[in-house]
């Protein structure tokens, strides 16, 4: 497993999720800290394409051998794509949480919500506490 990393071009949610915002779309995933706490991911149960997700609410589940964890939406939107690679290789969430281990892509319905997310420094501070 790689060392703790928190890219500075991402926005973070205090429930340990990240968003990579590109125009009116965003890619979402869980942070290094989240995957490390959970342990080896063995199952990702994705939402359906076309379904709506609500900021601060659970939109999917990731499971390790021992535990199940809700994934909290950092932003509101409509699912436009889910990462199919994770069906056969859920371990990508551990190996590359910001790359191949992304979870879903959404079309943002309230782009202004991005203002409420944390920058990398704020998120690191949260982890230090």
């Amino acid at each position: 497993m790689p060392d703790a990393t928190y890219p500075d071009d991402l926005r973070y949610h205090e429930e340990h999720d990240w968003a990579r915002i590109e125009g009116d779309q965003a890619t979402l995933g869980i942070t290094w800290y989240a995957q490390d706490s959970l342990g080896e991911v063995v199952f990702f149960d994705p939402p359906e394409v076309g379904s709506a997700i609500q900021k601060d609410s659970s939109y999917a589940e990731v499971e390790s051998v021992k535990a199940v964890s809700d994934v909290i939406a950092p932003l509101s939107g409509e699912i436009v794509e889910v990462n199919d690679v994770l069906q056969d290789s859920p371990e990508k969430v551990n190996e590359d949480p910001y790359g191949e281990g992304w979870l879903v892509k959404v079309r943002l319905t309230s782009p202004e919500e991005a203002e409420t997310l944390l920058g990398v420094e704020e998120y690191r501070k949260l982890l230090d506490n």
Partner: protein
Amino acid sequence: MRTPLYEQHVHLGAKVVDFAGWEMPVQYEGIREEHSAVRRHAGMFDVSHMGEVEVEGPGALAFLQRVLSNDVAKIQIGGAQYSCLCNEEGGVIDDLFAYRLGGDRYLVVTNAANHDADLEWLGRQSREFDAIVRDVADRYAMLAVQGPHARTVLEATLGIELPPRFHVSHPQIGRRPALTCGTGYTGEDGVELLLDPEVAVPIWCELLEAGIVPCGLGARDTLRLEVCYPLHGNELSTERNPIEAGLGWCCKEATGFIGSEAVARARAEGTAEELVAFKIDGQGIPREGNPVMRGDEQVGAVTSGTYAPSLELGAGMAYVRSELAEVGAEVEIDVRGKRRPARIASKPLYAKRS
């Protein structure tokens, strides 16, 4: 509470969790790696949180025969036997191994969460017998070394001969008296070492050096679940009798043990529910407490569920209505609102390749 090996776990970067009041390692590198190390090579578990109780005296056999469900008279000196400790209603207070150390001397190993309750029960029941019940949990650190290569690595590293399966011997380990028991909780060959706490750290380090993989409680749980060993608190409780738990084989009612009348009745009349093993068909991971469904009707509940690393699918054990407890029967597991098709499977779920 901490075991003598606590510092070693922290040093190895283990994730530490509370287990029955003990700060125990749940995993080091990862549950899957540790699980597969035990299936393919050799792993070691610090199980020093488990309790030990010594029973000694001219009435030791008569006393144990009264409290343990199995036929204790069958244990030879140096032998071991699995039993349930039942209350009058046949409810399971604990499940445990009894080892016969000498003519009138036995050791029983208790589950950490039940140690105090067991001691209280044993102390109370021993009053009418010429036997002394002694809490010796502080005298031992306990290490389970399990896997197809466990014996060869241990014998080479410690320079001792190990007892066969279900036997116990008492060699010196680290120049201190120790017990080596041919038992385990993984479905693999291996032994459990009861060590002087003073030498637990050097022995642990020696075994680590010899390539035995440190394993946490996480892998211990997935390993035992794949071979359908019950866990007290999940499959077993004072609300369940050994018959419905599938432990009728270790109950010898003819010995007249406490609870034997209730057990005999359950055996003769059958029970409303039975413990079964199941596998999920397709995706989904069952968890403890998930309802077992047939159509709109709940027909049981999951007692232990996990992703089973050797099977590479979700699997578990559940109590279901006895009429449905047949291998091959199709049910659904309600995993947090999603119905996951499952099939009742034969035990064990994982059979060792020989």
